[in-house]
């Protein structure tokens, strides 16, 4: 232990990440064990707070609904790549998850008789696809904000211990078992080692591998990257969701609730083009289909604007009072950032990188897997960083807020259960060394490259080559670019040499994770030679259930893998099918 600025802590359960998933786990675990939450952001700044539209649950408060229908929609929405046992749990436990939140104080919108109100959302239907159903429980268009606030409030109530603005940079393993996480304290530059019997990863997504994204600057996929660097697999990384309605050019999200409340997508000539792509549910088709339709309109020259590079979200036929009551925030975004008045003008929109379906593979107990079915004892993951997989090839709107609550709660419960009987795995003597070395290397580097420049080039190549449409060619281009950037990354330098609040240093470290995850994404995209859900290969435009009705599992290897030509090895994992046999997906 070379460094005296290393502090050691010991807990039963350590949760990495204070977003919805992390805090839901903390609330579950908190009363039963010694729990700490380590987060690089103050909890209420986590990106769960940006979620707008709602959280799905078949409460049947406003019309008939059932968890079976919900399961079916989830499976079908995910283009049948969903593990159906997990989807069943998601749908069944959704009702209790919403009730839990309400009981904790969440101010849901209400029906006239005082129950939780529900609204429509893309891909959620009655009776196995017959018609849209009102399944999304919501609090205006700030449902995620209210979830995050409510969970934090309850953590305060329970006196949960938080370590805020602590960046977890490594997971210390001992003999294949997790023993501690190593974190960098932003305020002081000191290193902290948190030993724990159970460790829960809830670090959210990694939208920042793309340029146009609805994700926060801080969503750099550190947690997913750490797991990958430990030689553990990542599942289904080729499936990244592009949300149809990002503010054109900016990527800021306008929730699907806008369409749930009646908003309509139009091309430059004012045509409601979704009628052509999904005749039954039109604008409320699942996101992959809508995003693709939009990209297609633009590609075929029917886009609006000087560069014909976006389409329009039309809310002008809605009552201003409805807009104010149900969509106040997103209409405000249009006004603030584009100067467009949604009461009277259609809003320019284009797909924006939004949600990672893939991530750290787990089973339905939120236990992390080290291969297709081996559990890493004491290691858990939940939320967007995890892949259970309930979202398959394409997540339905409102299913993620549900996911973080259902599987966040499960992670908390099983982590505590495990910690009650397990022994602390001894923390290796040199637990902090790797992080210290990594930090020192970046701090001392005297190269010529700028972190921001590399990140920009990475994001641009990902937007250009691995977005809604992909081909072997574009993916190869992205791959080559990433290799180039990796080399240049070796030659960076940073300006801030201080210890306190050194965000310059951390941005460099984050870029390292982004490069890793972008590479895995591109490789898995390249190897999946079919089109399914969010993954659209123009050179392989159809779904190929024969070959690809499987999850991809990407591992980091020491030596170059022959099949991929990189340090990434791919394996495949069967999909769990219970009730619903794969069919063609039509809406």
């Amino acid at each position, binding site marked *: 232990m070379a460094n005296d600025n290393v502090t050691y802590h010991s807990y039963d359960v350590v949760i990495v990440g204070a977003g919805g998933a992390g805090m839901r786990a903390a609330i579950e675990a908190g009363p039963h064990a010694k729990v700490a939450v380590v987060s690089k952001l103050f909890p209420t700044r986590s990106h769960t707070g940006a979620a707008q539209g709602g959280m799905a649950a078949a409460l049947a408060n406003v019309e008939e609904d059932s968890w079976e229908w919900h399961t079916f929609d989830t499976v079908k929405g995910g283009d049948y790549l969903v593990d159906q046992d997990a989807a069943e749990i998601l749908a069944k436990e959704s009702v*209790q998850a919403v*009730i839990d939140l309400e009981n904790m104080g969440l101010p849901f919108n209400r029906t006239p008789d005082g129950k939780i109100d529900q609204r429509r959302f893309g891909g959620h239907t009655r009776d196995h696809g017959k018609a849209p159903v009102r399944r999304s429980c919501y609090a205006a268009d700030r449902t995620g904000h209210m979830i995050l606030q409510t969970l934090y409030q309850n953590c305060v109530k*329970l*006196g949960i211990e938080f370590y805020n603005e602590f960046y977890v940079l490594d997971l210390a393993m001992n003999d294949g078992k997790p023993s501690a996480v190593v974190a960098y304290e932003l305020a002081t530059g000191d290193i902290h080692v948190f030993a724990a019997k159970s460790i829960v990863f809830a670090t959210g997504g990694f939208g920042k591998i793309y340029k146009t994204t609805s994700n926060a600057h801080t969503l750099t996929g550190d947690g997913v990257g750490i797991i990958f660097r430990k030689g553990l697999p990542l599942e289904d990384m080729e499936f990244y969701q592009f949300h149809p309605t990002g503010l054109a050019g900016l990527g800021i999200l306008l929730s699907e609730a806008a369409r749930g409340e009646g908003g309509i997508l139009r091309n430059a000539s004012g045509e409601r083009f979704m009628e052509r792509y999904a005749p039954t549910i039109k604008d409320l088709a699942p996101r992959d289909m809508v995003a693709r339709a939009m990209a297609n309109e633009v590609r075929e020259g029917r886009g609006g604007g000087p560069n014909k590079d976006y389409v329009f979200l039309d809310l002008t036929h809605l009552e201003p009072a409805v807009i104010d009551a149900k969509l106040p925030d997103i209409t405000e975004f249009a006004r603030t950032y584009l100067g467009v008045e949604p009461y009277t003008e259609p809003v320019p929109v284009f797909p924006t990188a939004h949600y990672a379906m893939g991530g750290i593979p787990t089973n339905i107990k939120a236990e992390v897997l080290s291969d297709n079915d081996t559990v890493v004892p004491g290691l858990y993951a939940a939320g967007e960083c995890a892949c259970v997989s309930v979202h398959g090839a394409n997540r339905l709107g409102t299913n993620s807020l549900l996911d973080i609550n259902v599987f966040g709660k499960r992670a908390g419960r099983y982590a505590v259960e495990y910690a009650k009987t397990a022994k602390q795995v001894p923390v290796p003597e040199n637990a902090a060394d790797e992080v210290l070395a990594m930090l020192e290397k970046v701090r001392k580097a005297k190269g010529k490259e700028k972190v921001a420049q590399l990140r920009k080039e990475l994001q641009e190549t990902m937007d250009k080559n691995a977005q809604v449409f992909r081909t072997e060619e574009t993916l190869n281009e992205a791959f080559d670019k990433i290799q180039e950037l990796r080399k240049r990354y070796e030659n960076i330098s940073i300006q801030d040499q201080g210890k306190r609040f050194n965000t310059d240093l951390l941005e460099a470290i984050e870029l390292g994770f982004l490069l890793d995850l972008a590479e895995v994404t591109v490789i898995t995209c390249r190897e999946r030679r079919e089109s399914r859900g969010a993954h659209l290969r123009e050179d392989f435009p159809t779904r190929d259930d024969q070959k690809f009705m499987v999850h991809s599992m990407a591992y980091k290897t020491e030596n170059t893998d022959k099949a991929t030509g990189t340090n990434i090895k791919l394996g495949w994992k069967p999909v769990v099918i219970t009730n619903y046999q794969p069919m063609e997906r039509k809406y």
Partner: protein
Amino acid sequence: MVVIETPVQPRSRKAANWEKYGWLFMRVSGPLLVVLIFTHLIVNLVLGDGIKAIDFAFVAGKWADPFWQVWDMAMLWLAMIHGTNGMRTIVNDYTEKERVRVGLNYTLWIVCALLIVLGTLVIFTFDPCPAGAAAELLPSFCPAN
């Protein structure tokens, strides 16, 4: 659902505090003072010859009437307490050391009490026609005239 039985304890309350009453007093005395002071200003400074007319005789003339005695006393009490309480707020805002704060507040209230006592005594023990004073200084109703 975890059931949370014991919320974090509320902060222990310090000794009863009078802030609420102070705040309310400012708001009750304010409108009264508007009536009292604005009338006072009009009677003394606008009507008649205004400030030119103010002298012993003028004051004595007013205080011969119990109506104005009570009026001015109310004004004195309310304005002093209102002003002192306002000053206390300001002192609390800008003093950093506890001792300075307490010291200044004591001073304020002592001054306030002294002036209220003094003023009240003056209003009620006041003799409009003091013996031996020059007659031309006194109000017209004095026997000296």
